[in-house]
Structures are given as C-alpha cells and as structure tokens.
C-alpha cells in the first residue's frame, strides 16, 4: 500500500503517510544504540537462564520460577527494543490488543492447569 507515497493521496495511502511521518518524528527507532542495548540485555537474560539451569543452585521449583520470570522479561525486551511497541501512532490499539492477548494467554494456561489437575486427583 505504501509503495506510491508520492501518488495522489487517498484513504489508504494517506494512512501510510501518517505512519511514515510519525516514524520520522520518533528519533529513537533510528538509533543503533537501542538495538545494541536490546541485544546485550537479551543475550544476558538468555545466558543467565542457561547458567542457572547448568549450575543447579536452586530447587527445581524455584529454578522454573526464575527461568519463567527471565522469559517474561525477555518478551518485554524483544517487544520494546526490537518491535517498537511503544512507538506506533496514537491511539495505540496494538498495545491494547497485545495486553488482551496476554490476558487470554494467561487465562488459557492457568485455567487449563487448574482444570486438568482435577482438584489434585491426577498427578499432572
């Protein structure tokens, strides 16, 4: 749709132009430091998880919890540094939908565990 930004404006391509201009006014997305910082943080989180798993300092349950927390942080890093979730034009529908998606994902996983454990009657 945005292949002809110079052609006469119409509904679709004017939206594309909006997006282009809002990007131009947001300098951080062009800066390489954002990407380098994101890269370093995500590598650190990954290596941290690997080290914890290899070192076996915690009990299994604590280990799983910590790794889960590191994974959630990793999602945040990827979203913020690489996918630029905070930089879309307002209103930020993508954040709303992302939040809703996370809520539903949480519901599906947590309730499935709750339901399928049959009140503790089954071992999984």
């Amino acid at each position, binding site marked *: 749709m945005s292949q002809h930004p110079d052609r006469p404006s119409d509904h679709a391509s004017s939206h594309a132009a909006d997006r282009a201009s809002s990007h131009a006014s947001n300098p951080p997305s062009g800066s390489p430091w954002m990407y380098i910082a994101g890269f370093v943080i995500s590598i650190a989180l990954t290596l941290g998880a690997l080290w914890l798993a290899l070192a076996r300092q915690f009990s299994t349950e604590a280990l799983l919890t910590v790794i889960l927390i590191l994974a959630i942080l990793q999602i945040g890093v990827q979203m913020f540094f690489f996918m630029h979730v905070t930089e879309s034009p307002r209103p930020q529908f993508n954040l709303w939908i992302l939040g809703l998606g996370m809520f539903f994902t949480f519901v599906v996983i947590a309730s499935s565990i*709750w339901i399928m454990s049959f009140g503790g009657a089954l071992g999984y």
Partner: protein
Amino acid sequence: MPTLLPHFPATFIVTGNPLIYGAEVSIVLATVGILFVLTYFKKWRWLWREWLTTVDHKKIAVMYLIAALLMFFRGGVDAMLMRTQLMQPNMHFLQAEHYNQIFTTHGTIMILFMAMPFIFAMFNIAVPLQIGARDVAFPYLNAVSFWLYFFAALLFNLSFVIGGSPDAGWVSYPPLAGLEFDPGPGENFYLLSLQITGIGSMATGINFMVTILKMRAPGMTLMRMPLFSWSVLASSILIIFAFPVLTVALALLLVDRLAGAHFFTMLQGGNPMMYVNLFWIWGHPEVYIVILPAFGIFSEVVSTFSGKRIFGYSSMVASLMTISVISYLLWVHHFYTMGAGPGVNSFFAVATMSVGIPTGVKVFNWLFTMYRGRIRLTVPMLWAIAFIPIFAIGGATGVMLAAAPADYQYHNSFFLIAHFHQVLIGGTVFGMLAGMYYWWPKMFGYMLNERIGRWAFWLFNGGFYVTFLPQYLLGLMGMTRRMYTYPADMGWNALNFISTIGAYVMGVGFIVLVLDVVYSIRYGERDVTGDPWNGRTLEWSLPSPAPHYNFARIPTVTSRDAWWTGKQARAKGDAPAPPEPLQPIHMPKNSGGPFILAVIFFIGGFGLVFNWYVLGLLALLGILVNLLLRSLDYDTDYYVPIEEIEHTEATLRRA
C-alpha cells in the same frame, strides 16, 4: 500404516446406501450441468474475471452468502433426515452408523460452514460501507479467506461420497475420534477441512479488526461507529484469540491420527480430556463469534425500522466489549460432568451466569428503542422482533444449564439440544436472515419480495417453536442426544412426532425463502434510491449496488447515524457543502492467487486425508511458491482515473 505410495482404501467411493447413491448421481449430474451451462453460454472468462479473481469485498460478500445458503441447505437436509429417523420409535430409515455421520456433519456444517460464512457475508457487505472505507484493509487476504473457506467446505462435503463422512460428533472427542476407534478417513476429512477453513477465519478476524481500527472515514471516532461495526470488532477479537486454540487441538489430534502420537490417546501418557478442554476454549467463544454480529444486525434493524436512534448506545458498546471478554471465560460449562471439581465448576458457573447481564442490557435496549418508535413491520424487523422471545427462553434455559449441579441432570440430553438450537437459530440464523433481507438491496440492487418473505418468516418461526419446545420436555424425560432410535414404551412418541412435524415446517419455510430469492431475481422491486429503508448509516448514502470503489469522495462524519443526520440537515434546508474535487482512487488489482492457493490447500488436504504424504508435500511446496510469488509481485494496485469515476457516478446517481 502410512506409506509413501498412494493406496486406495477399500471404500474409496462410498457404497451400499441408496441415499448415498442418490447423492453421488446428483453430484455428477449437477457438476456436468454447471460445466455445460458455463460452456454453452461462454461464461468461463466472465466467471474467472468477475468472481474467481475478485478482491472486491462486495463480491466476496455475495459469494459467502451463496455458499452459506447452500450449506444451510445441506445442513438442513441432514436435520430433516435425523428428524425423520426419530419421528417414530424403532424406525429403520437410517442405520446407526449413517445416523452418526449425519449428526456429525449437521453440526459441523451448520457452525463452521453455514454460520461462519453467513456472518462473513454480513461483515463484508456492511463494514467497509458503514465506516466509509473503500475496501477492507487487506483485500487480497480477504479473497484468500473466502477461497480457503470454500475449498474446505468442498473437502468436508466430499467425505459424504468419497471415503466416508466423519462420525464422532461435531466436537470429535478422542478417544472416539482417535485412530483406535475410528480408523477410516472420515475424521481426517473433518480435521483437515476445519484446519483449512480455520486459517481463513483467522485471516478474516485480523482483516476486519484492522479495517475497523485503521480505515474509518475522517470524523468517525469509535464512539460514532455504527453498532454493527462494533459487533464485528468484538467478534473479530474473539476470532483472533479463540481460533489458534482450535488449530492446536485439531493439529495435535491429527498428529495422533496420522503419525501415531499419543497426545489424546488413552494409554502411553495421553489425556483425551485435554482435547475436550482445548476444543471448548475455542468452542465457547465460537458461539459468541457467531452471535455478536447478529446482535449488531438487530441493533441496526431495530433502530432503522423504529425510526429512532438506538437506545443506550454507550451501554450497547460496553456490553458488546464485556461479552467479548467474559465469553472467553466460560468454556468449562460444556463439560461440568468431566469432574474437574467443585472449585472449577463453581467458578465457571458464576462466570456463565454473569454473561447474562450484558446480554440482558442489550435486550432491554432493543425494547426501549422500539418503545414509542414509529415501527415499520418489514421482514428484517419481523426477524428481529421474533428473535427477542426466542432468545429470552433460550437464555433462561441457558442459565438453568449453567447451574453446575443441575447440569448433571440436563447434560447431553435433548434439553441441551433444544437450548442451543434456540439461541443459535433464534440468535444467529434469525439475525443473519434479518441482515440478508436488510442489506439485500445494497448487495444486488433490488429488494426481496416482502409478501413471500413474510410467508417464509411465519413458517420458519412457527415451525421453530413446534420443533424445539417439545425437545425440552424430551430432555427432561431422559432422551439423550445422538441416539439413533428409541423403544416405543418410553413415552417419547408423541413429542418426537410433533418435533419432526415442526422440523418439516421449518424446511418448508426455508424452501419459501429460496423461492423468494428466485422470484425476486426476476420480479423484485428495483432499488433506485440507494436508501430503500430510510436508513441511518453510511452504506445507504451510496447507490445500490455500490460502485466498486464504494465512495467517490470519502465522507467526513460529524455524528452518530451519519447518513440520517445528513438527511435531517438537508430536510431543514441546510445546503450541503460543495463537493470537493474528485481525486484518482487507489484500488487493489484482481488476482488469481487466492483461488490457486486454496486449490493447492484442497489438493494437499485431500492427500493427507488418505495419508498420501507425497501429495501433501507437493502441496506444501506449491503453497510456499504461491506465497513467494505474491510477495515478489509489486504490480498489485492501480488508480481509477477521475473521468471513469465521473462517468460511473453520473450513471449511478439519481441526481
């Protein structure tokens, strides 16, 4: 055992039943007939250029509508066969296995191949026109969605004559649907066709969410958007979050069946209950996916034919959004009897009952909209009014079923059957038929005949009560679903007989509906104004049918019910602003890509049904090549020149 070389199962073409022989002969005759007509009238090129390659949302809506009505017929015939079998005790009209196949295909077709395309027909015809857009956000993807649905439906229906129909119920629970108890290819047909149509539905959900959020005309804030578009937004959100779960559940079951895995088997660590859980995580939002657009249509219809703006617009929006979130949190009420424990069952029982609150808000708002309105009893309005008592009864029995302890009594009885037919027919089907009558002039440029439409309405609506009210009693008397016959001394005979008569009346109602369509093609009143119902929203500001670019000039919206406000202002004598100069319109080009992609999906799906992995792999390759070619194709759009717009507008406009 799966092999690499094609091997034909012993029952490749289904034999041994006069009904199926009849179907085989009629399929061959119909195919030959269609090919002959297309060739004789030299329509092949027309078919390809105008329909098979189109990316125009209005034409896609027409194709969805035709497909939905055809599938309504197929599912309806299944229903007639079942009711005939149950008309009297100890009938031998259908054998047990044939009955199993028929209730399976009836459910699957009605939900996935009738209700879904019917709502998509309404999405496609109304949403871009209502929000002042020239097409959906991704027109090519829209065509992909339709053709995937179309070929999935073809694949599913093919099972009737080739390989054998699926017979494990529309929910297809393992272990019954697993390889051990259901070795034939029937279940593979079910799994693969649902996967293919699921991709299409998912794409439609994304498409319409983006369209509604990003492509509204200037000035049309979300809170000025027509309620039907709001309901489509709510429904799209549910599609996006529910369908992936179905995809996972079906994929795992398919891996079980094709590759011998043990996700849902009884032994070796499998857990069939997990399938039930995953299926209903999709399945419960699914019923709201198909009913929320119906709510949207009722809002439009009730408001238009009461001559009033909708009562409580903000509360309508709030309840739509609330329903779309709460409806995701109810799924366990489909399997209370699985025994997940009192904690789980209580939570989901309370959540289920609470969804009645926003739904009740909507019903009262429709009633208050009608209150002191100048009501015109047109056919769409009749369907909308008839919906209210049916939905009230269906909702009340729904709350009864939601009470977990009581559900142990009702579970899988005809009480349940009566309940969900009441909400799905009374809600979705009545809503879609109201929408079909309401937007028909916008789709085709002529009205459906009101007189015949009334006959169809009264037959279908009357037959509905006669069919389903006795089924509540049958359920309370202990008749369970999916039993193919019953002994004579159960006391069920009279009620079953009445129910079957009602089903026949509904069948006649459907035939009259089709007669209305056929009659109106020839004699229907032409809609020359573009606004036959004295409508309120922007689609009625356009000629009927709308030109392919929809709006020559994108309107600027200043209020809710934008077209109505504009009409009021003109009636008061306010001179409309002088039209802005026309500009060339940016439009997507037609493409054969979606059709070819879906054909490849069909071939691959057919291959996997019979474990022909070579065919499956070739199709996968074809799909990747098709996607690659599309992403390398930069010649996808063009501009409609000003002269052409002027010419089209001069031809279409009355002024």
